[in-house]
């Protein structure tokens, strides 16, 4: 009995949250890695891009809510996602045309691109706060929980409860759907393969007749879709605060590099590696050991490896280990 309780405990406090967080990171990391692979730069504006797209979704959600439109048990924001995507595509193409294209044609160094993406970061940062303010916004509606802890305890008779928020479930489902579609596109369609080819060897792709402007356009479209979905899911699950979106960029970068920069599948796995590590290593396992071990071995301390305050340290440690020992990422060359 206690054994099952311990499993439920871990599921509730580690497994479900890590799946959710991992999905959010995975979507973000795939976007960053695509920009890196095709456009060849680390986009430091990506966090604020997600904030921007989520802001668009929130504004349209409010509009829908004001018109009495809703999605029942599902959050209304899901209806607003397409509008967010379209707006994000516009702004990405705008920035590409006015800013990035110039440096691409000049074949500027990676550093120049980073600095320029910083400029875009400042601009997006400002736009989001000017339009929607810097404060916490909660735009979740619909059914909050799929199953509440108390309900679970009642149904199963266990001591430990398992709560699954609808946002956690939605995040996982939408991530699986989005990533399946994306990987099908990349691996099975001619256009998708041409994107991978261009990312792998630009000169040869040009020699093969692949049109770079089409690839770049497609990349920004895909990035916009991923950023909007990731940002919205994160905002629904936690809440929308522009500041946190930049902070999320750091584990996203870590996930990207862990998966091998330029490798979308690697980025997907990398997201989960980082998420499970962060949550797994900052969880206090005391209760778990209390369930598992006989009474005389039960720990007194929290049995927490690292305090949650040091989440960054985990991303950083993993990042450093990967960069020093396996700079091409740990998922090189894997097929889906």
């Amino acid at each position, binding site marked *: 009995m206690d054994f099952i309780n311990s499993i439920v405990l871990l599921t509730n406090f580690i497994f479900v949250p890590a799946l959710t967080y991992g999905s959010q990171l995975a979507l973000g990391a795939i976007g960053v890695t695509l920009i890196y692979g095709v456009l060849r730069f680390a986009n430091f504006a990506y966090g604020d891009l997600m904030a921007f797209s989520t802001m668009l979704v929130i504004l349209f959600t409010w509009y829908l809510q004001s018109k009495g439109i809703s999605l029942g048990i599902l959050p209304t924001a899901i209806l607003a996602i397409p509008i967010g995507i379209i707006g994000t595509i516009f702004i990405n193409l705008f920035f590409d045309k006015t800013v990035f294209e110039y440096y691409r044609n000049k074949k500027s160094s990676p550093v120049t691109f980073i600095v320029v993406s910083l400029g875009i970061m400042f601009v997006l940062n400002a736009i989001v706060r000017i339009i929607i303010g810097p404060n916490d916004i909660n735009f979740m509606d619909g059914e909050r929980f799929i199953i509440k802890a108390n309900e679970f305890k009642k149904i199963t008779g266990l001591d430990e409860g398992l709560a699954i928020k609808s946002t956690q479930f939605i995040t996982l489902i939408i991530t699986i759907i989005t990533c399946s579609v994306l990987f099908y596109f990349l691996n099975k369609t001619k256009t998708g393969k*041409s994107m991978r080819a261009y990312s792998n060897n630009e000169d040869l792709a*040009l020699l093969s*007749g692949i049109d770079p402007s089409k690839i770049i356009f497609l990349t920004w479209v895909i990035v916009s879709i991923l950023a909007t979905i990731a940002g919205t899911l994160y905002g629904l699950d936690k809440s929308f605060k522009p500041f946190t979106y930049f902070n999320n960029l750091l584990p996203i970068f870590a996930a990207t590099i862990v998966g091998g920069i330029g490798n979308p599948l690697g980025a997907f796995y990398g997201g989960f590696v980082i998420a499970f590590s962060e949550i797994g290593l900052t969880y206090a396992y005391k209760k778990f050991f209390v369930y598992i071990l006989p009474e005389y071995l039960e720990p007194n301390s929290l049995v927490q490896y690292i305090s949650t305050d040091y989440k960054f340290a985990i991303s950083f440690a993993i990042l450093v280990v990967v960069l020093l020992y396996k700079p091409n990422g740990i998922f090189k060359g894997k097929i889906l």
Partner: protein
Amino acid sequence: MYFSAKNLTGGYGGINIIEDCSFEVNQGEIVSILGPNGAGKSTAMKAMLGILNLKCGEVLLNGENISDFKTQERIKSGISFVPQTQNIFTELTVQENLEMGAFLIQEGINERIEKMFDLFPIIKEKRNQFAGELSGGQRQQVAIARALMTNPKVLMLDEPTAGVSPVIMDEIFQHILNIKKQNIAILMVEQNARQALEISDRGYILVTGKNAYEGNGDYLLNDEEIRKSFLGG
């Protein structure tokens, strides 16, 4: 002549690497471009492909002046190029490499792929492997096969046997001879001058960016002076 380049002059920045170079090749011919290091062989090939900006000179394909064509347009017109390095998509499978080679083609891709596998049987069993995992010789085969997917009329190769063992070199030259049978005009830059001339119909020798010698493969192979200077005696 099916494909010809006349009076090519150009280089990188302000310096001219090649001056007043001319080459021509007919369908079903193998023509080699040889010469010491730094003679401008690769530069000349890039100029013919439109990758390099020319100060003057013209390129003609089947009578049409393609000097103003951009590289992609020249590819569409029937020229194909196998670069010396980074000539395959390492992160794509062999099959996908061939598919990318046929990017500009709409139909009949699968048949062409099967034909390529007939021409290069060794890579057929590796069709679903990542091209980057193949050995040097196999990679070259994939590179050449990729270039052939567009059914080009002119195939240009930049040092196809660079860095491979003698056995593999023979294999690659054998493949090139097979390609010649398909009536394709083959132009290749090579370092392994003697072996290249042995399979070539004609050859050009470039020295410091200018045409120095030209003639039949046999003639160049057997001429005393040329043998001593370029073919290692």
